[in-house]
């Protein structure tokens, strides 16, 4: 698939590397030009990465066009800002009609509110907490 990822932090760069390795066409966007080299220093986006890197604001329609959002099959918004992720993914979903759009939203309330109106949201706060609680309770019951 053709995939656009907004946000080249730990999660974004990992998805980019994995999907590229699996043979998908990846474009990763970050407004900080140093984000890409940081990912490569961490050993995530190495020289083997065949995808494209675009420097710019992922909520800017012109930047998203440059990243190929018009022909994308998948879109992932994983910047540090919940609101940026919500805005970028709504642009991808509602304006460019990208079929698979996923937004990371840390704030559980905001995640629930946007999930209700049809945005596919991932809330690491709730999922992380539940996972840790599960591990704790499993230990206790042993």
């Amino acid at each position: 698939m053709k995939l656009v990822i907004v946000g080249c932090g730990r999660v974004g760069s990992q998805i980019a590397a994995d999907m590229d390795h699996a043979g998908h066409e990846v474009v990763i966007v970050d407004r900080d030009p140093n984000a890409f080299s940081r990912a490569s220093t961490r050993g995530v986006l190495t020289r083997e990465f065949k995808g494209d890197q675009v420097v710019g604001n992922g909520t800017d329609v012109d930047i998203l066009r440059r990243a190929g959002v018009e022909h994308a099959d998948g879109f992932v918004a994983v910047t540090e800002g919940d609101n940026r992720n919500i805005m970028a993914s709504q642009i991808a979903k509602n304006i460019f009609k990208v079929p698979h759009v996923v937004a990371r939203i840390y704030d559980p309330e905001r995640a629930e509110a946007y999930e209700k109106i049809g945005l596919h949201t991932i809330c690491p706060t709730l999922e992380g907490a539940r996972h840790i609680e599960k591990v704790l309770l499993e230990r206790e019951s042993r």
Partner: protein
Amino acid sequence: MYVIVVGGGTVGYYLSRDLVERGHEVTLIERDGKRADWLETQLGSIVMRGDGCEVRFLAQTGIERADAIIAVTADDEDNLIALQMAKKHFKVKKTIARVNNPTNVEIFKMLGVDEAVSATEVLLGALEPPLTT
């Protein structure tokens, strides 16, 4: 009218002040504590400190009886989310945004905001003479 203003920067401050002078009821929401304190010294108890994108906080502002909400922070994404929350959660009739990126005027309307105002567009309009055909 009861108007909620999100963002107490320069635009939010003067906007709230003028709305009060015109006899409207106003709540000004500011996220930054220091800035909120300063705004309160100027405008009094109409200032509330909090995040205008949070449903729980918005619920404390009497938003369900607001006639309009105007989001004027410096971040387009924050303005969009505050107004979408106001519209979808609290059914506020009129939502108005300040946008910094002029291409967002159209985008905001497509995403459910009633009015979007771009200072860049206004300035360009002032610079360019009207087209005469």
